């Protein structure tokens, strides 16, 4: 029996965001936007979804009088990501 792929992660932009955040300690919203080639609106929606399920932490603060949003993956997010990759590997092994 295959594990079901996490529907939160099995989405192009959310998976891109999680993959990026898993590689760094924390990243600014603008950095994620640039690397994922997404629009601010779409990214905001997906970031909010990831935040709601507790996969990422979002911090809003001011840096040099400008608002700055930083995102960071949570331990729950790391676990979900690891499970997602394991499930993917299972699917791919069967597909071989």
């Amino acid at each position: 029996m295959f594990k079901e792929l996490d529907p939160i992660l099995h989405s192009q932009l959310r998976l891109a965001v999680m993959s990026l955040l898993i590689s760094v300690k924390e990243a600014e919203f603008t950095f994620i936007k640039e690397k994922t080639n997404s629009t601010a609106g779409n990214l905001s929606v997906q970031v909010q979804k990831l935040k709601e399920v507790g996969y990422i932490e979002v911090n809003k603060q001011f840096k040099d009088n400008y608002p700055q949003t930083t995102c960071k993956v949570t331990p729950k997010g790391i676990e979900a990501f690891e499970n997602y990759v394991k499930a993917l590997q299972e699917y791919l092994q069967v597909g071989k």
Partner: protein
Amino acid sequence: MAKEEHELSEQQSLKLITDMIQKAKESYYDTGISPILWGSAVFLASFITFLQLQFDYKLPFDIWLIVLFAIVPQIVISIRESKFQKFRSHTDTAVDAIWIVYAATLFGLILYQNIVPSVTNKLMNAEGWRMVKHTIDNSRTDEALLPFAPSFTSVFLLVYAFPTLATGLIKHFKPMIIGAIITYGLFIVSCFIENKYDMLLSAITALVCWFIPGFILRKKYLKQKKSSV
């Protein structure tokens, strides 16, 4: 990329993960300015100290003050770089911690070098004895000596190698690993040679540990910046 959401296949998911991890890796940059700054400062201070000892000449000021003054541009560089840094990698925190410990150790050693001899001297005086320089063939009359740690620069070489090697290993940056290994070699050499030459070894250390790796980082950074324009 992800402008429109559509169902991902397993292969596409895996490719997306790999691509994003790669993008994060490629985004990492180090301007190389800090190692160039410290490499130059320590090189100049060490080399000029060596010249002073070699030619028995003394500058009217302590040349090691340039290392102290290097803290000012370092603060400016750190503030400037943090403004442009859009993310922090996991290794950044570890490397920062290592350099903080290094700075504290260095500060402690400088304190030791400056305080311990006079304190020891006071303790010896209180006990009613002192150190003297006595020539074996009695060609000179005995001279009073202040206690000192022999070949103390050797210890500094050892300390310089530690954060350099740790940074090189964490960041997988070969020039720093090589620089640190050379420095460990120079430390062994310094144990057998006259103190004066330790300063020359210290100058070489500044070049191999920081200046050259910093220059390589700078070159990489400028290349990366050029390609991303």
